[in-house]
């Protein structure tokens, strides 16, 4: 069974020769849909985090606004919207305003490359993986600018921590990513998903996949600044880290991009290692594969991403925070060597064709 991929960008291209107007309306609708999707995902994630955290901590979480507090996030968003917008007197006003936007933009640009189902992907670049790694690094710029422009020593400390942390962990994340690129032989994200038709890379690659998966998850958690790597925020150490001086809507932009970054990480992890929208297939067992195909690809993607998000939240509500030097040690002395060895072993596997269901 083949999976024809048609992206939204391609569909727009198809419309273009007929009538440019229809195409523009289509583009406009797409932009609206992406915005709505991000907002709703953000709200759902924040609600989920609060509920999951609450149940980890033997309490109920929001219960008052709407049924089981489902409208709590909306109420909070409204509150943030109505708050006074403060730019500190001694802050660099332009950079202070620009920082949350940049942070948000970095996440937004990754979002368009995510393959959510064969028909639901905004753009499918042939250098997809490279693109994702490149633009996701933009987020750190927003954090650095935010910390620097606030003119606050705590903010600056948070920003410097974030800078060191995100840039270091990007190395490991990329090494783990390369393992999958090696096995699938393509940089295109939809191609990577297609390459997992006979099975997901997490188990097909003789352990290389699962090691790369673990490294990618750890490094990714560090890149999105979540516990146990939330040093940039470090509430008990740096009050609020890089966003100490932010309030109201600007703060909520940082907050929203943090949560959507978690979605992006979960989606990328499931795309690379868990088959993305590809159903659970085992080699050539046609009956089993056929049964699995009944569940639509979009649902598979949602399920895998949800599972990954739950895992990341589980980390946060279980682990304490690392210290800044331990963080660097973990990356440069532990993850990076393992990542390199893993890459070499995978290369050997690929060259010899020694992995499950190699073509």
């Amino acid at each position: 069974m083949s999976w024809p991929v048609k992206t939204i960008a391609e569909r727009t291209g198809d419309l273009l020769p007929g009538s440019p107007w229809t195409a523009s309306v289509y583009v406009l609708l797409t932009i609206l849909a992406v915005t709505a999707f991000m907002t709703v995902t953000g709200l759902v994630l924040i609600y989920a985090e609060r509920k999951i955290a609450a149940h980890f901590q033997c309490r109920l979480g929001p219960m008052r606004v709407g049924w089981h507090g489902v409208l709590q996030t909306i109420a909070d968003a409204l509150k943030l919207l109505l708050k006074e917008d403060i730019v500190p007197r001694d802050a660099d006003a332009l950079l202070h305003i620009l920082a949350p936007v940049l942070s948000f933009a970095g996440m937004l640009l990754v979002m368009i490359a995510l393959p959510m189902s064969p028909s639901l992907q905004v753009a499918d670049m042939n250098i997809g993986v490279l693109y994702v790694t490149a633009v996701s690094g933009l987020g750190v710029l927003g954090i650095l600018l935010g910390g620097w422009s606030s003119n606050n020593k705590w903010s600056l400390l948070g920003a410097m921590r974030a800078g060191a942390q995100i840039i270091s962990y990007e190395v490991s994340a990329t090494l783990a990513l390369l393992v999958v690129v090696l096995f699938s032989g393509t940089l295109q994200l939809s191609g990577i998903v297609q390459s997992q038709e006979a099975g997901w890379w997490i188990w097909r690659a003789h352990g290389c996949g699962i090691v790369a998966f673990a490294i990618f998850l750890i490094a990714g958690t560090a890149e999105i600044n979540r516990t146990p790597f939330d040093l940039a925020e470090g509430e008990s150490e740096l009050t609020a880290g890089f966003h100490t001086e932010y309030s109201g809507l600007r703060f909520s932009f940082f907050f929203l991009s943090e949560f959507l970054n978690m979605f992006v990480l979960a989606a990328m992890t499931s795309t690379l290692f868990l088959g993305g929208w590809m159903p659970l297939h085992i080699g050539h067992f046609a009956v089993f594969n056929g049964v699995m195909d009944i569940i639509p690809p979009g649902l598979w993607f949602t399920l895998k991403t949800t599972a990954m998000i739950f895992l990341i939240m589980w980390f946060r509500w279980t682990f304490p925070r690392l210290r800044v030097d331990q963080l660097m040690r973990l990356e440069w002395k532990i993850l990076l060597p393992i990542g390199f060895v893993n890459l070499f072993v995978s290369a050997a596997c690929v060259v010899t064709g020694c992995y499950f269901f190699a073509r």
Partner: protein
Amino acid sequence: MSVHVSTLQARISGESTASSPLSTEEYFVNMGPQHPSTHGVLRLVLRLDGETVREVVPVLGYIHRGIEKMGEHGNYRQFVHLVDRMDYLSALANNWAVTMVVEKAAKMETNDRIQAIRTLVCELQRIQSHQLWWGVFGMDLGAFTPFFYGLRDREQICDIFEKTIGARLTMNYIQPGGVMYDIHPDFVKDVKAFLTYFKSKMPEYDALMTENVIIQERLRGIGKLSAERAIALGATGPVLRASGVAHDLRKSEPYGLYSQVDFDVPVGTTGDCWDRYWVRMEEMRQSVRIVEQLIDNIPEGKTFLVKPAAKIKVPAGVHYSHVETARGVLGVLLVSNGKDAPYRIHCRTPNFNNLWCIGEMATGGRIGDLVATLSSIDIVVPDIDR
């Protein structure tokens, strides 16, 4: 306040201790009085070199209420309720410290029932105080969940106190001549239910924090305090015992019914944050042991041996008495001129001396270490300022 800062700045202008070959500049940061991990209104002036802490100077006075001075204007019974507001997590031990010095000086009688109740509630409060510390310690290390676990279990002790004493935090329960009220009919049953419950929850505490590799990495070898320095700085309680000095007033100068119960004094070896953590965890278990031994044998008798309204006259002279609270030695020095109000009263509080160890413990560490160390001292700021 400015005095402290300017002396620090004067010190910095002399020589730079920056160790990096790159030229770096040291800078000052005010940690507090409003900061999530200074537990109230403590202010620490930090001299930092990047992330490394070069010097810590605590600045006090943000919650000074003049409790000792107020004590001179009321009678002894009124002073008992003022000390609730010092170390609010061991209000009962504070009550007992004042009660003890007054009873000793005025030669007031007590009976075994009173002493048993006092010992029991103080040990329950020690558990409660350590539970709260455990939760907050986790929070300061960046893990939120322990806080809720600790508070969930602490709630049960608060409920027991509420039934007998009527208050959950500021008790005003132990009074010269007895205890304010007799124990609630449910007290024994509730305490036993709590012990069963809490013993089943201790493994949860260990699984969440003690056995966590990040916790161990962050605590071992951090914030070291040698036994000599701990004694020189006047540290008491778990901070002193973690440094390897087995000093516990409950053992060395037993009061209440401590001489009749069997318990160990946990002692650390190196005096790092891990030892302080371990000592407190072990103390909770020992307190459970003490409560278990006493709960079935509360003697019969009256619980208040004087008329509550009676004026207490303390003979002229200087009197001193001390107890072991959850945080260390609380001593009360009483100067009396023979009237029904103290001439001068002074409290030697454990938190003040314990806090002063931070300068030695945290220098040279990172900001994260400083937070862990401060939290491992377990300070209550109103007890420092009074």
